[in-house]
């Protein structure tokens, strides 16, 4: 009797080539920031070594310090941006199933860092009433242990004063015109059944409301529909 072929076991880890792309991405940013005379970067290198495995998932943690980056392109004023990056990747199909990026903006003077603004960018498809991709302003800072702080060259005294807002940080989100804002408010403040009810109504109503002019974004997504990364959100800049 012929035996059924044994299916190949799902890979339990990520290959070097897959992990190395994280470093490649940061190196590319580092190159560009140097070319733009924007500031320097330090991160927990190599990122390819910062994965641990559990339950069929790769858990990635990394830290990045954008050192004295220009406040904006034409500015001479500098800001320090600290990122804590956490990801969970399902090894069997290499999908990113959760991502949390915490970014802190600091003004550094006399070796003291004053928090200007702190925000989380989150993606986790399993949480009820959370928009799939979202940004959250927050007041908690990234906590660095001494070793990581030294590694990414963020060894400043921290000003204990409460955070103020850094208004030049622009956060790509989905269409946040009126129906969207209201839906998000419902998500934040309603229990799940009520949220679902409002969502059903809002989805119908928003068809009849004026649509934002997003031709360029639409074309960008139609041209590369396999991802929804922020490059789409800047298509008007490159095509306009």
């Amino acid at each position, binding site marked *: 009797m012929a035996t059924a072929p044994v299916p190949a*076991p799902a*890979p*339990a*880890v*990520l*290959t*070097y*080539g897959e992990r*190395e792309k994280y*470093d*490649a991405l940061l*190196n590319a940013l580092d*190159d560009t920031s*140097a070319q733009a005379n924007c500031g320097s970067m*330090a991160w927990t*290198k*190599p990122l*390819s*070594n910062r994965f*641990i*495995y559990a339950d069929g998932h790769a858990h990635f943690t990394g830290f990045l310090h954008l050192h004295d980056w220009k406040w904006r392109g034409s500015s001479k004023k500098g800001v320090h941006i600290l990122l804590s990056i956490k990801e969970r990747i399902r090894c069997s199909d290499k999908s990113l199933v959760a991502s949390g990026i915490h970014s802190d903006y600091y003004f550094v003077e006399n070796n003291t860092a004053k928090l200007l603004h702190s925000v989380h960018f989150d993606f986790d498809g399993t949480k009820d009433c959370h928009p799939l991709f979202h940004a959250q302003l927050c007041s908690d800072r990234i906590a660095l242990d001494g*070793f990581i702080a030294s*590694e990414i060259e963020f060894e400043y005294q921290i000003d204990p004063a409460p955070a103020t807002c850094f208004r030049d940080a622009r956060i790509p989100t989905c269409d946040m015109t009126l129906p969207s804002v209201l839906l998000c408010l419902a998500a934040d403040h309603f229990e799940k059944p009520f949220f679902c009810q409002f969502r059903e109504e809002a989805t119908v109503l928003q068809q009849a409301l004026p649509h934002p002019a997003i031709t360029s974004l639409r074309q960008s997504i139609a041209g590369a529909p396999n991802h929804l990364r922020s490059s789409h959100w800047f298509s008007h800049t490159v095509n306009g």
Partner: protein
Amino acid sequence: MTDTMKTRVILFDDVPKNRDEVLGALSGALGKEGDVQLFVAGKAGLKEGTHEKRLAADLGVAPNAPASLIIADRDLSGYSDDYRGLSESTVRLVADELGIPECGYARGERDDDPSYIERGEQRESCIRLSLRPDIGQFAKQAVAIAGGFAKISDGLTAALKESSKKSPGKLLASILGKPEYADKISLFASGDQNRLAALASVRAAKDEPGRERRLACFLGYWLWDSILRFPGVVVNEVAASSYLNIHQEDFQKTDLQDLFREALYDGPFAGAKEQLWWRGKLDDIVSTSGCSDGKIYAEQKLKRSLRQSQCCEDPSKSAGYYCFLSKRPVSLERSKTGLPWFPRGADLARVSLKAYEELGPWL
């Protein structure tokens, strides 16, 4: 290998006894693969002009041409008449212009003084060979270097046919048969200002064959003194054991190294360098087996327990990285990140805290 592809080494040495010894050793190591020719002065017939001008002319005619590699003693002050006061640096300068790879050795190299070789390692585009432990080993290395440059030259022709607009990193990755490592290899060039002059010289070549010869030389030196020197794309035995989390002594066992045989580096200069492994290949052997590190993988395969790698500063910690100064395994926590002169691609190269404290002001 066809007759026209035979290796041809041109030797510069002004002391007859030493010259004959080196000539014999090189000839023996080359065997039927090629021949070695002592440099013959004055063949181009130029009687006037600088050393550089006459040397370039003499190296352009038989029996000095064609040359696959020039090997020159550091001290050439004994050359008389036309080339009185000749030095290895002048030979090197002319070799660069002609696109002929060159490497030096020091006749008077003392057994207790490694500085001649070490200083060479710290310079860009410089290959120095030691006559120790014996001249036979020296000759084998020289032949492997000639073969390495020849491989690069052959591979470059093919790589340029695919596309002439590739970056040096992409060209070298293609020559090495590892196009998937092109980005990583390119990081070894990123920010390396010292090579800009050599690249400018490639662009300044008057004709296409000359440009290709200079580019092959450039890529060969870059591979030799940066990519194969710093742990990132490839790793030496200590760095490999550390990366795999296997104790250095355990990693020296033949049955263990057999598990990683397919990751051995066998590209250009493999016979002239210490044994090296492709870092990505080592990683893939481990990860495709579903193991989280090399120690677990090897223990499963060999059915015996192994010791984990040991940080040179704290043996209770596993290592993972390589202290480039002490040449020992080191942990992330007990080391400093790359020094400014480390290539950006050398992401496994660190400096142990102790070495950093001792040498910090000089680094």
